[in-house]
């Protein structure tokens, strides 16, 4: 019983670390550009297929190291183009927020079914990051799990460093705090919007590469991930990076324990209940500002 609880907590921590990567990406996009991206989950699946093509189809040398190396520029470009071609033309309308939601929802549908058409409806599996286990006393830890945890935490720290120490990162923060003020001091707002979109796409893509090793790649799985990331973001407070970090670990744990105790089918119901209760008590989320 005790060992099982430890096991469940470990899987909760690992889920939490990857969710935090994805939720922070989403928070960043919402906090900076105020765009509501419904296709977010589809980019997670895209990350999974990206790794699958490189590792299984092409058998690239260097394994996951090369995949990560290739993923960063590819996802940056995809995210950048997405914002430039699809989102930024909508900004001139009054009700652009609603239009962006509708457009990204259409994009999600398009991407999900395009994946299904190209890769087939059956789920695919990725090879593990690391093989083997570590034994501490009676406890057995998978090296893969530890690898995923370490990688996603270091990705988070890396993005944190980029945001706080580079000129682009600081410009992103400036636009988030005051778009007009940022423009006055000469920060190109539109490029920053696109860059933020690109960074968040990298985050969710890396999250897909990491998490798809544990969960299989399902062409229709994007919506679930998107909902999860949104629940975390709303729970933590929209636009609050620290809030979504906490929320990701809380929900990762909740999911692991509810799935273990009541069965996986109740996970979504428990998540929604938690979200509704939180929002009823604190409409701005855990750490959000009014």
């Amino acid at each position: 019983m005790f060992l099982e609880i430890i096991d469940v907590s470990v899987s909760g921590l690992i889920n939490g670390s990857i969710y935090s990567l994805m939720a922070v990406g989403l928070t960043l996009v919402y906090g900076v550009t105020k765009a509501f991206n419904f296709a977010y989950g589809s980019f997670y699946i895209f990350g999974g297929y990206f790794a699958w093509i490189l590792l299984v189809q092409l058998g690239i040398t260097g394994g996951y190291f090369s995949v990560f190396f290739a993923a960063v520029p590819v996802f940056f470009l995809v995210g950048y183009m997405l914002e430039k071609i699809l989102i930024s033309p909508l900004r001139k309308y009054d009700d652009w927020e609603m239009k962006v939601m509708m457009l990204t929802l259409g994009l999600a549908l398009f991407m999900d079914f395009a994946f299904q058409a190209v890769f087939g409806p059956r789920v695919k599996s990725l090879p593990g990051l690391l093989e083997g286990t570590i034994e501490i006393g009676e406890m057995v830890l998978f090296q893969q799990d530890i690898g995923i945890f370490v990688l996603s935490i270091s990705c988070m720290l890396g993005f944190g460093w980029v945001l706080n120490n580079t000129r682009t990162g600081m410009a992103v923060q400036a636009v988030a705090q005051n778009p007009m003020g940022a423009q006055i001091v000469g920060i190109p707002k539109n490029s920053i919007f696109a860059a933020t979109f690109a960074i968040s796409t990298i985050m969710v893509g890396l999250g897909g590469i990491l998490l798809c090793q544990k969960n299989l790649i399902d062409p229709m799985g994007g919506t679930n991930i998107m909902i999860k990331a949104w629940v975390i973001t709303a729970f933590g407070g929209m636009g609050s990076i620290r809030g979504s970090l906490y929320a990701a670990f809380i929900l990762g744990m909740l999911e692991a324990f509810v799935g273990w105790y009541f069965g996986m089918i109740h996970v979504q119901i428990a998540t929604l209940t938690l979200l509704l209760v939180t929002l009823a008590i604190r409409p701005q989320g855990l750490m959000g500002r009014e």
Partner: protein
Amino acid sequence: MGALPLFFGGTDYIMNILIMILIWAVVASCWDVIMGFAGIFSFGQVSFYVIGAYSSAILSVSLNIPPLFSIILAGIITGIFGVLVGLPCLRLAGPYVALVTFAVHMTLVPFLRGPLGRAIGSGGSQGILTIPPIELLGLSFSSDHLVSFFYLTLFLTIVFTLILVMVIKSYWGTAFLVLKDSENLAASLGISAFKYKLMVFALTSFITGLFGALYAHYVGMLSTKMLSMDVFTILMIMMVIGGIGKYPGVVIGAVITVTVNQLLAPLGMYRPLIMGAIVIILVLFLRDGVIGLIDRLISSQKKVSVDENSLKFVSKEE
């Protein structure tokens, strides 16, 4: 439209399309009232539709309630559910509402398929297969009796469209216009945003649930496939084609979308892919939907000597 069955009475395919157009037109109009007039980013319209359909089906199959009453009960249940969802979420800012209502949608699938849903008679992943037809005055209304069902749907569509139009034109509609322009002004006039939003949420979910129930008794079987993204997108395309908040536009959107969707049916799994692409293209290039297009055509004919750009400049100066 009422005379169409006289010509198409024998053609089941076209009758089916006409009935679906009528049902979807009302459901989409309700969504337009929520999104366009009340300004609530609700993404729960399909879930209300499905809740209505399932409650009427469960009531009539498990409890043997005559469909005529179960449909009305289903509307009331959906209305209550709408209030329950609205209570926590209508105080929230725009994107939160979208998220919560969409999460409700996503939660319905595991709920209806899981043990909880089976306990209340949802039939699990198989769905409900034997929903009785509506019986009234010795007549039977279902997919086996297309013409009579068409007239029943037409009657209900007209009644509820009139109710929606009355709401838009009434004090409520004006209140929403004020709320949308300036919530502070509205508050100073004593208009409570929350109260009006909750009222409109209850009304539209009642109507949506009623038409969901109507659909359930029309097709005679239900499954959780109704909650797929596909259906959601179809409803959204109606809004995009019609234009958000341009009321009769969404009805035109329903006519076009249902027809095109039926024509695309032979494409199988490529249909949702094409629907997704259509949404992207329409959002990018069709600014205010069909109504906006017509408006611009009319205004470009009227414009004789006034340059639009100079007008914009003047209004900005003020």
